[in-house]
Each structure stands twice: as structure tokens, then as C-alpha cells.
């Protein structure tokens, strides 16, 4: 289990903290969605939860990050990376640039960990299989579509063998085809039993995928509950979050006294 306890974080060079007293728990096998308006603190929560803040980017963190009850303070980034990894929006900047094929790219993580060759190969194969991209194994990582590139990046993270995967707006820079690829990959990822924290603007993507949804506003957690109920909460729009399409449509129908989607025979 990955926990943030009372996390208050200030970026280096900034006067005021961006996160205030954030409590967040990510349990094994859970899929948690993280939503909030722009500049609400979603990305910062992802960086703190992964340990990159303050370890890599500096800044000041008060409060704690714990994994299975043990504080993570004192661990180095690569030690932490075997427990929790983070993926970003841009597939191009997540490409190492030192791999000639997708297989090599995915194998880089375990190789960097100093694992024996057999183990590295096994992990790379497993990661490609989990995300169903074995057919991309011989391709040049620099010549993939955005969606494919993002899948390769996620596979590379998976190959590290972490128990917690954090993804910060994985579909933000992708076209609809790419977003669909990633959405399918998220389900495959969830099926491995890893805990998944996905920050997203597109609530449609989270709808039906997540067990829980957490809402951030002004650097604080304002709502944390079961996905369905949270995504239907009427305060979402006040917090700058677009509710999923089906929720909006349901409300538009109800406002006119029309039958609900279910009553109209639209499958849930």
C-alpha cells in the first residue's frame, strides 16, 4: 500500500506550497482516478507519491510518504523505482534514446537495475505481453505513433516490476486512436494486480475503469470515494472537472423531466 500522510509540498524556488495536508491511500490491486481542474495539484500529487518530489526535483515536503507502512525517506530514486513508478504525458520525452528496438527500450529498466540477463529478458517479454504489444518488439521506438509510444513507455515502467503505477494524464497528448489504446492498456495493467493511480482530465476514461476517484482542488483533497458516486457528485463542475458524458446526459434528461437513460433502454 502506498500512502501519503499530511503531505504538504512546496516546489523549489516558490514561496507557497502547492499541496496542503494531502492524505491519500493506494492499496494493492486498486485503481484510483485523480481528477481536478488545471493547476489543482494533480501532477504534484503524482510527483510526490512517486518520490520524485522532492528526491529528484527538490522542493520541500512535509508529512510523509509510506510504502507498506515504512516511510520512503532515505531511499534513493532507483531503489524507490522498484516499488512505485510514474509515467508522464509525452511519449517522446519518455523514450530513452539509447534503444534500437522496442524490446531493448522496455528491457532498459530491468537492465539498469543490474538484473541478470535471463531475468531482464523475462521481464521485458512479460511487460510486452501484458500490454499486448509483442508485435511492436522489433520496431524503432522513435517511429511509433503517439499511442504506441505511450504504451511502450508504460511497458518500460511495468518491466521494473513495481507494485504501484502512477500515470499523469497518459492520454493528454494523444489522438482518439492513441487514447483508446491506452485505455485498453489500463485495463490490462489493472488485471496484473498492481495498484494504479491515474490522473486524468477525461473523466469518460475513468468512468467504468476506476474503483475509487479522488478530487483535488487548490492542492487539497476535496472528495475521495467510490468511483460511480464521486463522478456523479454535483460539485465536480465547481472544482473545474467535467463529469463523464453519461452523467451529463442523465442530468440533462432529468432536468427536462424525461426518462433516464436506463429507462430508455440505453445499456449502462
Amino acid at each position, binding site marked *: 500500500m502506498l500512502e501519503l500522510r499530511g503531505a504538504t509540498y512546496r516546489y523549489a524556488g516558490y514561496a507557497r506550497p502547492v499541496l496542503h495536508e494531502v492524505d491519500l491511500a493506494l492499496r494493492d490491486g486498486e485503481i484510483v482516478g485523480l481528477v*481536478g*481542474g*488545471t*493547476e489543482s495539484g494533480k501532477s504534484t500529487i503524482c510527483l510526490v507519491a512517486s518520490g520524485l518530489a522532492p528526491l529528484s526535483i527538490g522542493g520541500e515536503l512535509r508529512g510523509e510518504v509510506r510504502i507498506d507502512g515504512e516511510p520512503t525517506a532515505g531511499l534513493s530514486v532507483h531503489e524507490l523505482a522498484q516499488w512505485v513508478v510514474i509515467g508522464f504525458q509525452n511519449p517522446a520525452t519518455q523514450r530513452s534514446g539509447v534503444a534500437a528496438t522496442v524490446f531493448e527500450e522496455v528491457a532498459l529498466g530491468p537492465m539498469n537495475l543490474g538484473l541478470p540477463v535471463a531475468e531482464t529478458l523475462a521481464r521485458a517479454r512479460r511487460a510486452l505481453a501484458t500490454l499486448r504489444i509483442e508485435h511492436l518488439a522489433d520496431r524503432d521506438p522513435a517511429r511509433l*505513433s*503517439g499511442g504506441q509510444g505511450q504504451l511502450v513507455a508504460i511497458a518500460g515502467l511495468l518491466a521494473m516490476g513495481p507494485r504501484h503505477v502512477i500515470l499523469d*494524464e497518459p492520454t*493528454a*497528448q494523444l*489522438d*482518439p*486512436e*492513441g*487514447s*483508446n489504446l491506452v485505455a485498453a492498456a489500463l485495463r490490462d495493467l489493472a488485471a496484473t494486480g498492481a495498484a494504479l493511480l491515474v490522473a486524468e*482530465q477525461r473523466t469518460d476514461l475513468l468512468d467504468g475503469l476506476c474503483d475509487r476517484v479522488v478530487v483535488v482542488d487548490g492542492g487539497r483533497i476535496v472528495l475521495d470515494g467510490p468511483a460511480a458516486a464521486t463522478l456523479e457528485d454535483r460539485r465536480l*463542475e465547481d472544482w*473545474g*472537472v*467535467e463529469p463523464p*458524458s*453519461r452523467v*451529463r*446526459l442523465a442530468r*440533462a*434528461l432529468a432536468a*427536462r423531466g*424525461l*426518462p433516464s*437513460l436506463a429507462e*430508455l*433502454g*440505453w445499456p449502462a
Partner: protein
Amino acid sequence: MAGVSTVAAGAGGASGAADAGVAAAGASRAAAAAIEVAGLVHVYPEGTRALTGVDLRVAVGESVAIVGQNGSGKTTLVRHLNGLLRPTEGVVHVDGRDVTGERVARLAGFVGLTFQDPDRQIFAGRARAEVAFGPRNLGLRGTALEAAVADALAAVGLADAADVNPYDLGYSRRRLLAIASVLAMRTPIVILDEPTTGQDLRGVALVREIVRGLVAEGRTVLAISHDMRFVAEAFGRVVVMREGRVVLDGTPAEVFAEAAWPALASTWLEPPLAARVGAHLGLGSTPTESALVEALAVRS
């Protein structure tokens, strides 16, 4: 696969359950063409055939959304409109003139083009100065310049951030700043490249309002977008591209109608939820929530 239907919708942006044969068809054919592209082919130096024969006619005051996967040619197409790219074959007319060979800096006064990544554009230390760059290049000075800058900042909700360093704004607000820097140039044609990507609820609402405002002023608006709901609600016409050609062209009602779904599916695009529900319930084409609600209310 549905054939290409070229219907030039009239001025004004609202969608709704419009009839397939737009009444103003005759009038719009007579209306001035802001943009006219015929047989446009573009092959990049390394050999990529990005456009394989595009025909497009946009009347003055229309609002057109261009959709399709990355690589379908959307960006290549719009870059011909302000002279950044020259056609390999075919002609491009803007405002009645052939623009092949025109300097980009000159065309910038007629065609405003926003770019996706604000960080590959922003260089000034203050938001105000960044927005002033474009109009200043067009020769605006003094109070006229200040007014253009102030209006543009207000339109994107950054009026109170005029003296802030752009890099102290978050990424999404910087995107809005980049849009403002083109709005300030007050061009008759405005092309927005993925304006809602990365924006939250408020940002999307702002962009929608910007489009509506531009159309109300009689400007011609084009936008590249991946957001089908935004497209259905804010634009009068949708052009779907695939592999360098236009495969669908019509009002949102036409493009998201059930008959067009196979064509849409071939480009990996999905119609908005409202359209799917409407089709499921046999209500005809309801590309937006309001259209669906109206159709249901009428039926019951």
C-alpha cells in the same frame, strides 16, 4: 463507406438537429469564399505524402472543425493556409487570392494560426508583451495596440495576469495565452490547433466562447480537434480527414449520423454519446445533448 458530402453550411456556429439539406445552400454558394483549396497534394521532402488530393471550400463566417487521427493531414492542410507550406500540386486561395509564393509574414495579417505547444512560441517576460508581439508585427502601435492586447487577454480570461511572467502561469493557461497572442492580431480567418487539449472545464468553456465570439464578429474559424463533443457543439461544419484526404464533410448532424458511422469508424473516431443514444432510440441524428433532449421532448 459514406461518400463525401460537401455541404457549405451558412454563417453562425450552432449545431443542433439541422436538416440535411441546409436551406441556405444556394445563398452560401454565392457567399464569398474565405478559403478555397482544390486538388491539394503535399509531399514532404523525405517523401511522406501527407495530402493526397484535398478539396475544401470555406465560406466567409463559417466555423469548421477538422478532425482525424494524427497523421491524417490536418496540420499539413492548415499550414498551407498561411503560407508555411507550399503545395506540391493543387491550388490554395485565401480571400480570393492565390497564396502560393506569398510570404508568411504577409499572410499573417489575414490568417491567424495557433500552435499546440505554447512553450515553442513564448519568449517574452510578461504576458502582455507576448500578446503584443503579433499585432506589433502587423504594424499596430499606441492605443490601438493596447486595446487589441487587452481585448485578447480578456477573451482568454487572463486580464488579471497581464503583467505576470508566462512561465509563472500553468501550462493550460499558457496555452490560452498563445491563443490570445493570435486573437490580438484580429485576423479575418482564425485557425486553432487543438484548442481544448489539456484544458479543464473552465478552459473548454472559454474556448467555446471564443469560437462563438469570433463567429459573431463575422470571422471565419477553423479548428483542429480530437474532442468530438466540443466539435459537435461549437461548430457548424465538420471535415473528417484520413490518410491525406477528406472522407466526410458536413454539419455535425450529418457527420455524426448513423449513416456516417462506418466512415467515422474507419478513422478510429467515435461519435459523441448523444449521437449514439439518439441513434439507438431511433430519433434521427442528435449530435449534441440539447439536440437529443429536444428530440426526446418532441417525441413524448
